[in-house]
């Protein structure tokens, strides 16, 4: 099983290397290598998942390579196999496979076709490195590689200025988070002399009492570590206040948005916290912080989506909002629900993005939903797929999204976190609004397609290669929740990989009973009422246009400006940095180093030598005078000393 997992992990990497070798060869070879390497990874992760559940050997940890081996600690490359890692890798590879397949058609006219697949393969590998890491160093390496590949892919269209700015922004914001992660890593090494997950999980109880002193303040070591690591997760998983890179990452090709949002990037933060849940369980205060960060993100960034008009940006804000749900679930110790929502979200969000890609291709790269309309007749498959994905996103009963999202909201309410509960509840309404906004504007109303393309023949919709992934993704988006809900809730699915199982059990026994009862019960809850109101409201407002609302100007501006985060990121921070670096440039670089150290030294020597050279008159009689007077002086000295 270990060898198979190693092959699974390395297959995308080998794919990347092969693609690098035959960069200039034909597209067919690129397609073949990239898709097959991911396909191998996908099939292997399903197979290992099956093996794991049939034999159930418990978590396996194995080291392969050693980077460093000192007396204090050793750093390894290794693999950690348990149900959490395997389920995550199945999700990552399945979405990645579909995105790869979809991209063949989406990117077919691009000049850098081969480069695209090199990056995506590498992206998948980096994420798998995080998923299967058995120590923090490997996690960190994977983390950085994910950041690197997302940087390369967001700026894939290197000649587009906005894309370059966006990838720069994504990279820099992730750097901020990486500082947290790196500090956490250092603190772990400092406190426990090991980076191995297993060893840390084993000594976790004894390490909780340790305290660490930074700048004279004393912290509980474990809480400090968990908080620092969570800062890393905040940047990766786009939580307030480090969320503003994600909407801009829409500058990349649409399949990449699907990949980033569903499988390989933003889920890394959630996955890491879930992976370290035994540690987070022991902290105090950190979880409350996570809970509030999550619910604030879910509510406020959902609102921002309402005023956006770019189809991809709306979906991006909805991702941030859904990530907020997951983070809130982590903060309420509902780790398996967070993972559950991650999985369902991966599928329906990938589906949404691939639909958006299909729409964008059909409309010749038009992304403004005000300029798109009436596509229902011409894109029946995309229409249906988008509808199911939207239903899942808004949590309409029986869909996957319903099970994961409703459980999170209800469980947070059940355990009495009132303020987060209310925020999450209200964001059901906003989710419904912005989802139906896209839905009604894009698929209904006047058709905006040019006359000659208004062909209702379904074969004209788009390439089959683009539509097939939509078909496949619809199934898990709608039905996956129903199948895995019960085993997930009673802890069969994740076994002991996640902490606080008893909390889930009490929620399950006290509130859910079973998936069908939960489904029936949901019709009587306030969640469903809010959902219905949202649906009716958006039907009247966006479809019938029965009334119009004058949003006060300042609210609209605040939302468009993303509560000032936009000006913060694109104006304030660069400005402050500019002033700061200019100050440094003037005071340190020019005044101290250039003028102070270098120019001063040289001019001092110059002055000295120009004084010294006056001694060299060039006249022989001066030299001989000096020689003879020195001789006489020496003679006199000798006379005196003797």
């Amino acid at each position, binding site marked *: 099983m270990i060898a198979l997992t190693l092959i699974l992990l390395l297959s995308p990497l080998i794919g990347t290397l092969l693609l690098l070798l035959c960069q200039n060869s034909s597209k067919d070879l690129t397609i073949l290598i990239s898709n097959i390497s991911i396909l191998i990874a996908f099939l292997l992760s399903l197979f290992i998942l099956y093996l794991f559940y049939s034999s159930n050997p418990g978590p396996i940890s194995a080291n392969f390579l050693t980077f460093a081996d000192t007396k204090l600690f050793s750093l390894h490359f290794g693999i950690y196999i348990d149900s959490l890692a395997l389920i995550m890798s199945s999700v990552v590879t399945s979405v990645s496979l579909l995105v790869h397949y979809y991209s063949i058609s989406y990117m077919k006219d691009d000049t850098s076709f081969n480069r695209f697949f090199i990056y995506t393969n590498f992206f998948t590998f980096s994420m798998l490195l995080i998923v299967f890491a058995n120590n923090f160093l490997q996690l960190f390496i994977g983390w950085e590689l994910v950041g690197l590949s997302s940087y390369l892919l967001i700026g894939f269209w290197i000649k587009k200025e906005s894309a370059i700015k966006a990838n720069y922004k994504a990279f820099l914001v992730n750097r901020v988070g990486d500082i947290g992660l790196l500090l956490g890593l250092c603190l772990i090494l400092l406190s426990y002399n090991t980076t191995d997950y297993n060893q840390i999980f084993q000594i976790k109880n004894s390490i909780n009492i340790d305290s660490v002193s930074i700048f004279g303040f004393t912290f509980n070591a474990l809480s400090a570590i968990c908080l620092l690591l969570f800062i890393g997760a905040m940047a990766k998983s786009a939580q307030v206040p480090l969320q503003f890179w994600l909407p801009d990452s829409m500058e990349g090709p649409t399949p990449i948005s699907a990949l980033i949002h569903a499988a390989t990037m933003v889920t890394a933060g959630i996955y890491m916290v879930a992976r370290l849940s035994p540690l987070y369980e022991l902290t105090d205060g950190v979880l409350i912080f996570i809970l509030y960060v999550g619910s604030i993100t879910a509510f406020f960034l959902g609102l921002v989506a309402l005023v956006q008009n770019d189809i991809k940006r709306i979906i991006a804000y909805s991702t941030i909002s859904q990530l907020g749900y997951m983070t809130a679930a982590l903060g309420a110790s509902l780790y398996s629900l967070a993972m559950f929502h991650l999985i369902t979200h991966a599928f329906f969000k990938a589906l949404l993005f691939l639909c958006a890609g299909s729409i964008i291709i059909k409309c010749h790269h038009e992304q403004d939903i005000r300029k798109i309309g009436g596509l229902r007749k011409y894109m029946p498959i995309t229409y249906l797929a988008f509808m199911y994905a939207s239903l899942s996103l808004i949590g309409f009963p029986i869909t996957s999204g319903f099970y994961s999202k409703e459980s999170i909201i209800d469980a947070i309410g059940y355990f009495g976190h009132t303020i987060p509960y209310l925020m999450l509840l209200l964001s059901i309404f906003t989710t419904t609004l912005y989802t139906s906004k896209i839905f009604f504007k894009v698929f209904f109303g006047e058709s905006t397609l040019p006359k000659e393309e208004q062909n209702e023949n379904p074969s004209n919709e788009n390439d089959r290669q683009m539509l097939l992934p939509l078909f496949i993704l619809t199934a898990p988006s709608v039905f996956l929740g129903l199948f895995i809900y019960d085993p997930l809730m009673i802890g069969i699915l994740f076994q002991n990989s996640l902490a606080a199982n008893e909390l889930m059990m009490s929620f399950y026994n006290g509130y859910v009973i079973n998936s069908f009862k939960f489904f029936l019960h949901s019709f009587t809850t306030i969640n469903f009422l809010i959902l219905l109101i949202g649906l009716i409201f958006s039907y009247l407002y966006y479809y019938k246009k029965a009334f119009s609302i004058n949003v006060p100007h300042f609210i609209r501006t605040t939302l468009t400006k993303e509560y000032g985060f936009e000006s913060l990121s694109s104006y304030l921070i660069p400005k402050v940095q500019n002033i700061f670096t200019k100050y440094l440039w003037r005071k340190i670089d020019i005044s101290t180093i250039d003028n102070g150290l270098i120019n001063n030294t040289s001019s001092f020597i110059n002055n000295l030598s120009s004084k010294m050279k006056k001694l*060299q008159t*060039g*006249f*022989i009689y001066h030299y001989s005078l000096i020689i003879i007077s020195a001789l006489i002086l020496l003679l006199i000295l000798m006379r005196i000393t003797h």
Partner: protein
Amino acid sequence: MIPISYYLILSTIIFTLSVAGIFLNRKNILVLLMSLELMFLSVNFNLITLGNYLGDLTGQVFVFFVLTVVAAESAIGLALLIVLFRNKKTIDVDDLSELKG
């Protein structure tokens, strides 16, 4: 018999003249060479005087060696002088300040 101090005083006078000639001569490099010769001669004069006074022939023999070296030296000096004149068209000491910093 002329007392030895006379000889020594004479040689000192010649030596001082030659040193002064080197220092004060601002005109001619030929005069410089002549002053050098004079310096050697004054030293030779000392050697002979003291050799005679001490009854030791070594001093007088040594003078021959010195004279040989001086002859070679002045030959080289004059050769340099000719080369210098060819290049510079002058043997004026004040014009020869190439080493000035």
